[in-house]
């Protein structure tokens, strides 16, 4: 095959790249402007890797053994039918992923609701974007990560990044911030914070207080954009009654960010001609994540930023298809087109497209953590697509226990992930460059990832896997097309009229290079690069302030667990590391889990740089190599979450959930630090 223009398999930036067999070169696409990080450059290495799965595996006598597709499919179908017969449709659950293409996410949702008839479907995006999505929906009436093109950021004077570390998580993105002064909110001095004009390091779990403090300073210094608030928003007064109680000196006490710095942040934002407020997982992955994002949106609204050309609010989506993945029905409470599953009109529309009675569609199911917690109880069988919850879910030792309690665990993946290792049946599926499909990047632009090489023999697409299973459990074959283009046609119809309307997007328009940002309500429509310029998506056109108050972390330090731990990513690895840990050039740079500690804190635990330490919480412990970092807060440790087994950072994290988004509290928990036994 000649070289093919495609997109990176990793994060939501979806850098443009050119693939020649397995050789990657960067390509000049707007989001990456010719840049690639080390993950992108080495992305081809996994295509011909010996770690690829090329045959279905079936557990026999405790061992996963190669079997034919037919045998594996028959086995799974029989088990699914038996489970449904004996325990009801909701005894089978589906767990998806934010890396799946739009077509797969869509068909997975349809498969769950129509073929399995189960309400129990959710996905790992619940661990990623759910707080930002819920807050964005509440404030603006619709949730699109960036409601403007990434390239607009180049015109900003000031950008506030709350809990986002793009210098490590999506490096080429930083090019768009070259001319802006950055305000970076992060308890750690990250590579992004090092680029900041102003770095504010709040105690973990106190971001909402900080957002309220900066907002308070904006109002107290007379910078409230009153005409914008009057004309374009609702709910300021109720919100302000709470924000008024968070004067900067009080906020300083809670956050450790000086009142002077809060006022400076307010001043910088207010004086900027163009400014943006952007959030990332650091501020979102909390049991109060939705409220916290609401606090940042309040700040942006008080300054009159959202829906103004050249300024705005947005969140930086994480996974490759983190945006599209949350729009087309693999979320417990949603149907395609970003429709609500409990909305009768939405149910009627989608049911018609699917050719089934609306009343046959199940209602909302459990969210990710609650679903995983139910395994082995009322849920007897689980199908996992594009996810590795054994590494990525909070309190992962418990997830492992729950998986062991299942009658049937089926995993579709292209490598033997830590979750696949525990499965009864594993199906080998293609990876990015081996198949066609669309993704929606962090700015809501729909991209076509083209097939550039053939998958290895023995591999079949997720779409055909779903069809083959659907047919075996009694569905008509025409209801489950296995061609991506055909599935996309159905997705277009199903999304038509929804918030995320793709009905005007076609493969042909995408192939011709059109930049289509949803909504695209018809084929003549040019797409919507900038949303909200004329009004927000609520019926009255106004954005909503959120009357949110600071409550703090779900778990506070005490004498037994005197420190706080936070988790995050490193540049060389992606999510659970199932892909990147198999690429030698990346593991050479970051081979294993480490824990960043202030040198004084390390010394108090009798630890020095390079020692092995046990990081322990109420839920479990992780063994990690100590890195002494003088810029760390003395009361905080940091671990990356990409590593398996005893090195899983998520062995210690807290599954406390946000009441609205059901996001777990990945970003703060109480821990102790001790020397590991030799």
């Amino acid at each position, binding site marked *: 095959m000649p070289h093919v223009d495609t997109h990176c398999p990793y994060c939501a930036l979806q850098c443009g790249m050119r693939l020649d067999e397995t050789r990657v070169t960067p390509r000049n696409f707007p989001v990456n402007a010719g840049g*690639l990080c080390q993950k992108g450059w080495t992305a081809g290495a996994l295509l011909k890797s010996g770690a690829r799965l090329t045959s279905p595996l079936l557990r026999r006598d405790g061992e996963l053994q190669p079997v034919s597709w037919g045998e594996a499919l028959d086995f799974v179908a029989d088990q699914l039918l038996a489970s449904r017969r004996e325990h009801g449709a909701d005894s089978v659950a589906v767990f998806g992923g934010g890396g799946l293409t739009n077509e797969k996410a869509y068909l997975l949702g349809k498969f769950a609701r129509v073929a399995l008839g189960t309400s129990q479907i959710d996905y790992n995006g619940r661990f990623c974007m759910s707080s930002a999505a819920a807050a964005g929906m509440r404030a603006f009436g619709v949730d699109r990560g960036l409601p403007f093109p990434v390239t607009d950021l180049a015109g900003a004077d000031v950008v506030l990044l709350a809990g986002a570390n793009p*210098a490590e998580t999506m490096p080429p993105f930083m090019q768009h911030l070259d001319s802006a002064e950055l305000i970076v909110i992060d308890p750690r001095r990250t590579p992004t914070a090092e680029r900041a004009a102003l770095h504010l390091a709040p105690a973990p779990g106190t971001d909402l207080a900080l957002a309220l403090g900066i907002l308070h300073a904006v109002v107290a210094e007379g910078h409230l954009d009153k005409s914008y608030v009057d004309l374009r928003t609702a709910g300021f007064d109720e919100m302000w009654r709470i924000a*008024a109680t968070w004067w900067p*000196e009080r906020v300083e006490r809670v956050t*450790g960010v*000086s009142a002077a710095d809060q006022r400076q942040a307010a001043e910088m934002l207010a004086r900027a001609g163009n400014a943006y407020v952007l959030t990332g997982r650091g501020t979102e992955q909390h049991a109060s994540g939705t409220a916290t994002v609401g606090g940042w949106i309040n700040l942006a609204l008080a300054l009159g930023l959202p829906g103004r050309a050249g300024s705005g609010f947005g969140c930086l989506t994480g996974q490759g298809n983190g945006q599209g993945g949350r729009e087309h029905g693999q979320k417990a409470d949603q149907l395609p087109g970003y429709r609500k599953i409990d909305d009768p009109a939405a149910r009627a529309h989608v049911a018609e497209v699917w050719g089934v009675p609306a009343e046959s569609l199940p209602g909302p199911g459990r969210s990710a953590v609650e679903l995983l917690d139910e395994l082995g109880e009322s849920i007897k069988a689980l199908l996992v697509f594009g996810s590795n919850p054994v590494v990525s879910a909070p309190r992962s030792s418990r997830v492992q226990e729950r998986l062991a309690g299942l009658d049937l665990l089926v995993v579709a993946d292209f490598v033997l992930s830590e979750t696949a290792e525990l499965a009864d049946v594993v199906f080998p599926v293609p990876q990015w460059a081996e198949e066609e499909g669309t993704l929606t990047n962090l700015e809501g632009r729909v991209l076509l990832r083209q097939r550039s090489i053939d998958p290895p023999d023995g591999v079949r697409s997720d779409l055909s896997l779903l069809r083959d299973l659907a047919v075996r459990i009694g569905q008509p074959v025409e209801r489950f097309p296995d061609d991506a283009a055909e599935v996309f046609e159905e997705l277009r119809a199903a999304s038509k009229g929804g918030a995320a309307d793709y009905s005007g997007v076609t493969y042909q328009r995408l192939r011709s290079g059109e930049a289509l940002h949803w909504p695209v309500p018809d084929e003549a429509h040019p797409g919507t690069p900038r949303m909200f310029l004329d009004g927000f998506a609520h019926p009255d056109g106004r954005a909503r302030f959120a009357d949110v108050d600071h409550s703090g972390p779900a778990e506070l330090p005490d004498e037994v667990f005197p420190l706080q731990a936070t988790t995050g990513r490193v*540049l060389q690895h992606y999510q659970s590391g199932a892909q990147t840990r198999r690429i030698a050039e990346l593991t050479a740079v970051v081979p294993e889990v480490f824990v960043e500690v202030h040198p004084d804190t390390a010394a108090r635990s009798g630890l020095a740089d390079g020692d092995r330490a046990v990081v322990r919480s109420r839920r479990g412990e992780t063994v990690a190599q100590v890195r002494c970092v003088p810029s760390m807060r003395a009361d905080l440790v940091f671990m990356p979450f990409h590593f398996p087994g005893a090195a899983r950072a998520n062995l210690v994290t807290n599954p406390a959930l946000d009441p609205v988004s059901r996001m777990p509290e990945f970003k703060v928990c109480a821990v102790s630090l001790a020397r590991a036994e030799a």
Partner: protein
Amino acid sequence: MSARNVVIIGYGMAGARLADEIRRRDPEGDRVRLTVLGEEPHPAYNRVLLSTVVAGGMNADTVRLHDSEWAAQTQVDLRLGTRVTQIDPARRLVRTETEDFPYDSVVLATGAAPWMPPVEGLELGPEVVAFRTLDDCARIVDAARPGAPVAVLGGGLLGLEAARGLAGRGANVTVVHPQPHVLERQLDSGAGRVLARRLAELGVTFRFEVTAARHLPGDGLKLDDGSFVPADLVVVAAGVRPETSLAEAAGLAVDRGILVDDLLRTSDGRIHALGDCARHPGAPAGLVQPAWEQAAVLADLLTGADATARYRGTRTVTRLKARDIDLAALGETQVTSEDAAAEVVTFDDPSGGRYGKLVVRGDRVTGAILLGLPDAAATVTQLHDRGTPVPEDRLAVLLGRAMPAGAPTAASPADLPASTVICRCNAVTKGRLIEAWRGGATDAAALARTTRATTGCGSCRDTVGAVADWLAAQ
């Protein structure tokens, strides 16, 4: 079980907060039927922000704690402009001039009243205001014309915040303070001196160790040393007295405040008190933080949300809210280096407007004064509140530099060790660049092609260029 009748006397910061906390736990009023009696005619407002009103950042509207619909929306029977005449513990009645309110529990949140120093001719009126209410603020703002002479009686927190706000509006302010330095309860003399000097630079005049003897309305103040301070307006900020008259008349134990225990109970178990009118051994007077913490505890108890809730006292931090001045003081501030059991680190920079003092015992912060050191104030406060061990480098803590910036950038690439990562996006070290150069990649573009340096976020472009220049010059 029917809801219990709770009557809150007082609709200021403490009373309003308690009502909020109760409704947060009992939104529908299933457990508590709530009556709030407020003496002022308007809704509660945030007294902490009054100095911001005087300074000019806020107005009466933005400092309100509740909207006018608050009571109706939250099922609270709110009576404004209602003066309580008596609590009758025997009949469990709160009496006003027009109506009696039966109670199961009553809460005194009557606050405090300004203390008027014994100065001949000094009476609240058009030329004399306290600094306590929104109406006072309006009068102060009204009088603060550029060049207008204003006297402030008292160099405590409120007096200094008023003086700073007035000076900011251009008034000609004199603070009359009977002690040798300002904020003598919170600061040592060194900090007091630096603070007064800083305020003087901002236009505030001080008269120390004198008291006002006589007020000549429209003219000024005659001081006890015979001198004269001109003043169109006198702002009285000489302290407050807890409002305890209802409690005393009801026979409750009162000693410079209504005495309360850890359940915020007075000597009558059905009568509670909180905020400025109450006296708990662990609660410093005159600050909002103890009142709010007490409100949370009392709401837990009154709604039954947490019958084990107790108020054990508050660790407060003194913060002066005055533009261009950053002052924080906490814990034991008067300790000197003569106390051998404590580590005392001080830093004194009067001309720079900075003063720092850190008192450490057994690796923990027990006291601090941080003036003009905002970063240190934030860090030290957290060390104190969280009981975290103090970093080894005490002076760095005091200067707010305990958390250093990132690695310093070397002046020349020659000075960087070979292991230094130059391009983080592609994990390219200086050593790798040298190796590539020796392999024939002898300009920045070739280095980029060979090593991928600069091909990520691009921020290392200058450094790679400098390395290339340095290698070319070898």
